[in-house]
């Protein structure tokens, strides 16, 4: 089969071989105690003092935006770092909608200055293991995806998801943030964190925009790609094939498809139909279980970029429609979201 694939496939050929992405049937099952598992984690998180810190960073601030390096405490007492950017009062008056920009797998959290310039109070969070948050937990990259993958109670994403959800508490603790307008956005792993945060903080999240959502249908995806990061699972199972059932059992507690049924806010999902990193099939598996309003956009021949060249203005409009930043119509644009 490998020798036969010596040229790019057209969409028609791809559909012939793999079927329509939207017709993909997921193998993911929802554990009976899925909600209880996460309610216990979120309860533990709620009992953990936030202990927020904010240090101004004057040289990264502009005439429009104030930048702060921030910190807060998350699950298991792990300190999480990140960036908080808010409009200066002289640029846009508050209260501001809050926006969490969540990072991709290998990238460091961005400074969301361009979003703040649009009128958002924006946080760029560094979940545990990222630089600025890796003193107490550092499984390394590659490696995060398979760290303790046979044990749901210590799997890497247990704390990682909690850290992203906790960023919302940081936003809510800022007096200039309007608690009725809180959004979340990211691509790839950021797309996954958009889902998990919208589900775990469904009480406050107003809307979310997720590009190429990763961590949905883990095992289905690993069976559809040799590209990293999912290739980490293939590598692990090549070495330890007898652990497949344990791996699958763990991952079902962390699968965005199982979070998606708890996402009630309006969501925008965009995928590349030729994405080798996050197979687009599982984007439709998310769509199929979401109870709320969903806009699903597909881009032919686009890969893990998920059509961001064309999609970015649409994401800006979607978020502005639901979050109403002060300068949505000022002709300004956010930095293109990367996974």
């Amino acid at each position, binding site marked *: 089969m490998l020798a036969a*694939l010596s040229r790019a496939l057209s969409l028609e050929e791809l559909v012939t071989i793999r079927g329509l992405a939207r017709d993909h049937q997921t193998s993911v099952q929802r554990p009976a105690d899925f909600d209880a598992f996460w309610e216990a984690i979120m309860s533990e998180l709620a009992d953990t003092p936030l202990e927020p810190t904010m240090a101004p960073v004057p040289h990264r601030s502009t005439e429009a935006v104030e930048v702060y390096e921030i910190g807060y405490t998350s699950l298991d007492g792990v300190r999480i770092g990140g960036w908080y950017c808010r409009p200066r009062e002289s640029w846009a008056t508050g209260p501001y909608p809050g926006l969490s920009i969540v990072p991709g797998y*290998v990238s460091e959290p961005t400074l969301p200055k361009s979003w703040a310039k649009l009128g958002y109070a924006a946080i760029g969070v560094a979940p545990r293991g990222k630089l600025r948050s890796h003193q107490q937990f550092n499984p*390394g990259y590659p490696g995060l995806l398979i760290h303790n993958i046979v044990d749901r109670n210590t799997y890497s994403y247990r704390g990682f998801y909690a850290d992203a959800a906790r960023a919302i508490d940081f936003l809510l603790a800022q007096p200039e943030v309007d608690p009725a307008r809180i959004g979340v956005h990211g691509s790839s792993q950021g797309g996954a964190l958009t889902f998990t945060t919208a589900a775990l903080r469904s009480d406050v999240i107003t809307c979310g925009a997720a590009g190429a959502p990763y961590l949905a249908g883990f095992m289905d995806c690993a*069976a559809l790609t040799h590209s990293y990061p999912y290739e980490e699972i293939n590598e692990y199972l090549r070495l330890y094939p007898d652990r497949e059932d344990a791996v699958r059992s763990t991952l079902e507690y962390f699968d965005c498809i199982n979070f998606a049924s708890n996402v009630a806010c309006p969501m925008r999902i965009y995928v590349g139909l030729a994405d080798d990193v996050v197979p687009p099939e599982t984007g439709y598996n998310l769509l199929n279980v979401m109870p709320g309003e969903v806009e699903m956009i597909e881009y032919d021949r686009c890969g893990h970029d998920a059509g961001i060249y064309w999609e970015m203005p649409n994401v800006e409009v979607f978020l502005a429609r639901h979050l109403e930043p002060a300068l949505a119509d000022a002709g300004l644009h956010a930095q293109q979201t990367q996974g």
Partner: protein
Amino acid sequence: MTTSSQTTTAPADLDAYWDAIDVELAAIPAAPESEASALHSTEHSTTYRVKLTSIGPYRIEIFLSIPDGPGPFPALLLTPSYGSVVTPPSYDDRMRYVAATIRYRGTRHADKPYAAAFPGLLTDGIEDPDRWKFRGIFADTLRAFEYLVGLPMVDPEHVAINGTDAGVIVAARRSGVSALSVNAPFFYRLADLYPIAEAYPFEEINDHLRAFPDSVHAINRTLAYFDPLHHAAWVTADTLVSVGDAGAPGGPEWMAPLIQALGGAVEQYAITHEGQTDYDAVDRWLAQQQGVDPRPRMWMPQDIGPWTANSR
């Protein structure tokens, strides 16, 4: 926006500056220490983590993958991108090439004693070309290239570099590069780009200038040593340059000086912004240059196994 003319000129001591780096490198044994990685090896290839010493002295690490079989094999060096995480070469590159990625100084697994900050690396020492961290990072890249092409299973007639425009400087400073693909400008005309950029990482330089507004000339002087434009004439490799939108940085007007300056045969590829289309185009060009089959990146379930989607 000015996109058609460059503002940097080559420093008078450009050659002396880079010759000094080469002298430093030559004086430091690479002292390779190779360890096979079972986790990252496949049914087609074996991957190694190789520690090497670069200038400083500084211990860096590369992922090196070698296809199974007698060889010789074409070689592929992936130039570093800007970020803390470096992964092994892609599965499909590992199938076809002796391929290497570089954990340069400051990145994970090469972060002792220097742990780079992101943002922060781009401006670390930027006011002095002898202290800018990229002086060492380019030395790391040259060291990795030397190690790669010195391997006995490498076909010396087929040595390629793919990635950012850092490859232009490597191909200019070292002989033996047969094919060079420049996918994205980073160092090229950086002194022209950062004043009009608001996006990171280039915004790091604007941040630095907010704190040190008098350092603009020093910064631009440093950047000039690293502008691929001033090295391009020494490149003899066949070169593919990916070109972006007209009127924008990276577009045809912006890239024209580099394309004109390159010493080897140059082809241009007009970026479509369809990620997979663009990936496949570069892959096809490199494969043709290297005498191997192109590889699409959409995988079929039959290729992966034994765990398959919907296996329940």
